[in-house]
C-alpha cells in the first residue's frame, strides 16, 4: 500500500473519520450520501442531519466498486451495522453508478445543500472545482439553489487537468501550490488550459529554459482565469465558499481569490465531503417527509 502511494505520488490522501460525540444508537434516522466523483469518492453517514462518519477515497476504474469501497471505508470508522442505514442517496459525476442507493440527486443540489451545512447559512456562492467539472452555484439561506452553471464539457481548469499537469512535471500535487509561488516574477498565464495543449505548451516552455516553478505558475494562473470566467457568469455574492479537490490548491486559489475580490469562507470540515453531506441531508429530509425507504 505504502509502496503504491509512493509510485502514484499525485494521489490525494485517503482518510476516514468518525464523530466521537455521536452515538448512532440515539439516532432516529441514519442516512448516507455517496458522492462518486471522477477523481475521488466520498461516503458521508449522518445521524439526524449531523455528520457521524465519512470516508474519502480515490475513485477506481470501476465506479460501483468505488461507491461501495467509500462506504465501507466510512463504516470501518464506526461500530454501526450497515443495515442500520435508513436511506442512501448517490450523487456526483458517477451517481448512476451507486447501485445500492435508494435514489440519486444532482451534484448541483447536493453541493449547495452541503455547503450550507459545512460553511453555514451565510454562504451564497459556492464554487466547486471537481476532478472533471467546474460548478458555480448561488443558493439561499436554506441551501436551495437559485442560480447555477456547470462546465463539464472538458477537463480544462479541473482537478483532472491539474493532475495530468503535476504528473507531467513530476511535482507531487500537494506541492504544486507552494512551488508555483517560488518564482521571482509572475509569468504570463499559459494560453490554454486545455489538457492536450497545456502539455505541449509546458514541454516547449521547459525547453525554452523556464523553470518548473515558472511553468507551474503560468498554468495555475491560466486555470484561475478560466475558473473565474465561469463564476462571473452566475455572479459573485458574499459569502463565498470553495469546495472540491482543487479548493486545497493554493497555486490556483491564491490567484483566483483576488479576481473574485472576496475572502473564502472557512470551515473545520474537509471541503471534499460537501457533496456527500448534501446528499445525506436530502436523504434525511426525505425520511422526515415520510418519503424514505419503503420497509
Amino acid at each position, binding site marked *: 500500500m505504502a509502496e503504491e502511494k509512493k509510485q502514484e505520488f499525485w494521489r490525494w490522501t485517503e482518510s476516514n473519520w468518525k464523530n466521537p460525540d455521536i452515538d448512532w444508537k440515539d439516532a432516529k434516522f441514519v442516512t448516507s450520501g455517496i458522492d462518486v466523483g471522477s477523481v475521488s469518492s466520498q461516503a458521508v453517514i449522518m445521524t439526524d442531519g449531523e455528520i457521524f462518519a465519512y470516508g474519502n477515497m480515490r475513485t477506481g476504474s470501476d465506479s460501483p466498486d468505488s461507491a461501495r469501497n467509500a462506504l465501507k471505508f466510512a463504516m470501518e470508522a464506526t461500530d454501526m451495522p450497515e443495515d442500520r442505514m435508513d436511506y442512501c442517496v448517490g450523487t456526483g459525476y458517477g451517481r448512476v453508478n451507486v447501485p445500492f442507493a435508494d435514489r440519486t440527486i444532482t451534484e*448541483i443540489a447536493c453541493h449547495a445543500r452541503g455547503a450550507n451545512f459545512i460553511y453555514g447559512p451565510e454562504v451564497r456562492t459556492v464554487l466547486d472545482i471537481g476532478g472533471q467539472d467546474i460548478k458555480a452555484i448561488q443558493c439561499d439561506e436554506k441551501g436551495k439553489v437559485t442560480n447555477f452553471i456547470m462546465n*463539464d464539457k472538458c477537463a480544462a481548469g479541473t482537478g483532472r487537468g491539474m493532475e495530468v499537469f503535476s504528473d507531467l512535471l513530476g511535482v507531487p500535487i500537494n506541492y504544486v501550490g507552494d512551488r508555483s509561488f517560488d518564482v521571482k516574477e509572475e509569468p504570463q498565464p499559459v494560453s490554454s488550459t486545455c489538457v492536450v495543449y497545456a502539455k505541449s505548451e509546458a514541454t516547449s516552455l521547459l525547453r525554452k529554459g523556464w523553470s518548473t516553478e515558472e511553468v507551474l505558475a503560468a498554468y495555475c494562473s491560466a486555470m484561475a482565469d478560466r475558473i473565474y470566467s465561469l463564476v462571473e457568469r452566475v455572479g459573485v455574492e458574499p459569502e463565498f465558499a470553495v469546495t472540491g479537490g482543487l479548493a486545497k490548491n493554493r497555486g490556483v486559489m491564491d490567484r483566483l481569490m483576488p479576481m473574485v475580490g472576496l475572502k473564502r469562507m472557512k470551515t473545520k470540515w474537509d471541503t471534499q465531503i460537501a457533496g456527500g453531506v448534501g446528499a445525506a441531508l436530502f436523504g434525511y429530509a426525505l425520511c422526515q417527509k415520510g418519503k424514505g425507504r419503503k420497509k
Partner: protein
Amino acid sequence: MLANYGYKDASGDFFITIDTDICNGCGDCVSACPADIFEVMDEDPNDPLRDEPVAVVSADKKKKLKYECNPCKPASERPPLPCVEACKAGAISHSW
C-alpha cells in the same frame, strides 16, 4: 432558480437559461424545438424537494448547443427563436 445549461469554449458562451420559478412545466418548448433540446421532468433535478414539473435541457444536448441551435440562428437576420416564442411564461433565454 436560474438553471444555466451549456458551456463556454474558445469560440464563446453557449448557454440556455431556464427560470424554474417561472416555468410551469407545460411542455410547449418541447414540441416547439426542432432539435429536441428540452424535456419536462416531474421533479426539478436540482431542487428535489419541490415536486413540481419543470423543463430542463437534455443531458445529451447541453454539450453541443452551439451546433444544435445553429439552424434557428442564421447569421444574417435573427428570427424569433421557436423555443422562446413558444414559452408564454417567458422562462427561456439564450446567451448567444
